């Protein structure tokens, strides 16, 4: 598992990467009430706003961690956004993407580094 400074996690699954938000982020946001997901087959560049997450406290964007194409989205979140709070690292995933270059994963934080970030 890798982590971004924007509190997203990335998990490699075959040649795909699954993206979600960390437990720390889910707790900070509070009860998630709405999630807007990208369309499958969308090409994205690093830093693009690909999804929107709204809680009772805040609205924020989920950024593409790296360039690639969206291949699958978690439809369950549309009807049950609370999954993000209940299981942020599992059932609360957002989308799967095929990265242009898997090697960029090395640039992201590992768990220890991320834990240090959120201290």
């Amino acid at each position, binding site marked *: 598992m890798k982590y971004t400074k924007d509190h997203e996690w990335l998990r490699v699954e075959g040649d795909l990467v699954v993206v979600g938000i960390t437990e720390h982020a889910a707790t900070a946001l509070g*009860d998630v*009430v*709405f999630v*807007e997901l990208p369309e499958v087959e969308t090409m994205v560049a690093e830093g693009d706003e690909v999804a929107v997450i*709204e*809680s*009772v*406290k*805040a*609205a924020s*964007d989920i950024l593409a961690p790296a360039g690639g194409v969206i291949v699958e989205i978690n439809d369950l979140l549309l009807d049950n*956004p*609370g999954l993000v709070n209940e299981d942020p690292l599992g059932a609360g995933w957002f989308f799967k993407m095929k990265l242009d270059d898997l090697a960029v994963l090395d640039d992201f934080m590992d768990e220890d580094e991320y834990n240090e970030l959120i201290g």
Partner: protein
Amino acid sequence: MKEPAMTFTPVDYNPYDFANRRHIGPSPAEMAEMLAAVGVRSLDDLIAETVPSAIRQKSPLGWAPLSEQDLLGRMRAVAARNKVMTSLIGQGYYGTFTPPAIQRNILENPAWYTAYTPYQPEIAQGRLEALLNFQTMVADLTGLAVANASLLDEATAAAEAMTMAERCAKSKARAFFVDEGCHPQTVAVIKTRALPLDIQIIVGPPEALDPQAVFGAIFQYPGTLGHVRDFSAEIAALHGAKAIAVVATDLLALCLLKEPGAMGADIAVGSSQRFGVPMGYGGPHAAFFACKDEWKRSMPGRIVGVSIDSRGNKAYRLALQTREQHIRREKATSNVCTAQALLAVMASMYGVFHGPLGLRAIAERVHFMTNRLARALLAAGARVSPKAFFDTITVEVGVGQAGILAAARHEGLNFRKIGTDRVGISLDETIDEKVLLRVLRAFGIDGVPPHRASLSFPEAQLRVSAFMTHPVFHMNRAESEMMRYMRRLSDRDLALDRAMIPLGSCTMKLNAAAEMMAISWPEFSSLHPFCPPDQALGYREAIEDLREKLCEITGYEAFSMQPNSGAQGEYAGLLTIQAWHRSRGEGHRKVCLIPVSAHGTNPASAQMAGMQVVVVGSMPNGDVDLDDFRAKAVAAGGNLAACMITYPSTHGVFEETLREICRITHDHGGQVYLDGANMNAMVGLVKPGEIGSDVSHLNLHKTFAIPHGGGGPGMGPIGVKAHLAPFLPGHPESGGLAGAGLQNENHSGAVSAAPYGSASVLLISWAYCLMMGGEGLTQATRVAILNANYIAARLKGAYPVLFMGKQGRVAHECILDTRPFAGAGVSVDDIAKRLIDNGFHAPTMSWPVAGTLMVEPTESETKAEIDRFILALLAIREEIRAVEQGEISAEDSPLRHAPHTVEDLVADWTRRYPREQGCFPPGAFRVDKYWPPVGRVDNVHGDRNLICSCPPVESYRTAAQLPPAGVFVKG
């Protein structure tokens, strides 16, 4: 204090002194006690310790005060200079009968007009229901799934629709098509909005639309010249190109015409003015905004939703609050917050008052009158267009135009002047056969043709779907029922007519009765915003005098009265700065420095003005980080456009570094925008224009006594230094009232539908300035600062007070920290809801710092009321202490169960504290106890299950059957 014995001694006592006897709360004796509690000798000493001497203004405000009686006399004289005519100009503004029951029970009722935006749902169920009725009515009439709780005016709603279309459309085109049949002011505001966003505007006839070239299009239905046409084909073509279709429309027409939803429209906008809200020379009126279900989360403005309370009962609340700009900031696509709640409530009550059958009958009456007018003109050989119309026709009169317009005026009528050879005539519900005779006489025609129940548009355009089927629109319409319905709703709410509303940053001061009276007088309320200027001389006098006074107060040289809200003022001010930069060949300057502590509308407005927001950090004490500011100004260099500074700061402190911030900005070629949201701490003491600022908006609904109306109206005029005056907003219908910017071709474009925004409420601020006088306004500022410092002094032992100035003083508001109680499980929400049990509206929560309460008492509150508030907060502190000491858990405490309802009181009492303590805490009145109609409202449930119209009731299905057209009007 005991009254002294009545022996005759001549005293210096003026019973008609409005400022000191009526507007300012504390008496001189009370002030002495409060100063002692604060620990200063005099009010002047307090001000000296609070406001840095370097920024104090040099000369006092000059003018003498008027008594209430003299004010009303002056108002009468000014009113007499306006000429009341029957305006048939149309163009988005129409005559209407305000039902007297609505005028008296809503518009003129402080229970409605002094309420705040319903952020605290438990004390706002009444107005939330009225606004939900508005949303339901609009959604039904437009045939779309959801509607919001109003926007500022039709033109800005159309501009909002454009930016929303850009966000929602899958089309990547960069142009937006505007039907040339749109009202000119709508086209102008859309163009203004598009320019900084690099959106290309294509204006043309619907036939010219190339769907592939645009991300969206707007059509007017019926068109500004009267056309009724079906846009289904154009809309389908737009959808084929993944573009969004917007229809600007008219609610009364939709009672008779096929609804935009049935044509496939994605978004519908318009004005609800003709639903019982007077024209008022431009406003205020509630614009509406509705869209398909799939777009609802992108809809701008506030939306009322349905949720449940702590007992699982139905409860209303503002939904999706997180989207408001204080969260999305520079990523916001809209800066709308203040809307037109009071006017939306009036329009919704007009809907309740008439019901769908009544509205349909009114629409038919207007339509058949127009049909008679057209027939008479055609029979006399006049060239009338269009063939298909609802209430508006255009007559080609050639060189006779001036003669026809003069003949109309001779009959007491205003027609619309179109170009040099046509006139437009729009009829409305107030027009009867007698007026029709006068209209025809202006054309030299005698007599009116008989009524005929035939449609002047194709049968296919007739509305066949039902609307307003909910039972609320089918209640017995006896006035006794209506009156009680309005009373029941307002009784559910807490407004200023019951208790202090200590909302920090909102300035909930007195809205005095004398200030409010003139807005209902026909000489002010019935003027069309585009009437000939010689009919509005009274308005001219009032606006010019208010302009002069605002210039004196702020140290600016010019003012634009156009912006309809504070956020719109910010946006207009930044556009003015941009236009100035462009005029100097420096249009590339785009960087706007904004402190992280700024109000969320600041970055949102900067984004809308096409600026690049650079955030400046804060010091631990809340002040702007001057080193960071300097570094970012240097980094921006030749690209620096402006900085936006709130003063006193959003933390409620007069920062010492303001002059330095202005100097740095100017040194790098930028302009200073000083946000006037906190002007109530400056009037008479500090002039923004004297301390280095170039532009400010004033929230007239905060500092200058326009009531909040439960979330609008507001007014946000902007003042500027002389060099910026030529670049103030312009307007296509400037009405001949010479005002800064209106005649300059380099101006920054129109930002509102009407040249003077919501002109009629300017009278309230003018009345306030006249009665207070220069010294009274200054004293109000001093007392506002005293009241805030008194609260800080009394509460600082119980709650930490954050952010004080150098000498330990706050400005006109203070921030109480509740974060120390989080460890015990007590949240800022718990305290806010517990204040409701004490009969108070909560202070501003979690802004500008999460976990805090920001308290602004204003000068209008008496010591007794402030002491009751302090008593309540001290008692709450003891309840927190009980939790901290483990005597009761947070979950079991009265804090968590707050607010307590009558249901709680009469149910089996199983709580771990006494009933008496729960329901009657020390701040609460025994006899006049305020009972919230619902328990704590569940925000999460409401946002996850978004319902934005009146909950359905099965039993009223039969009401959905509407008889065919022509049944109700018998000539």
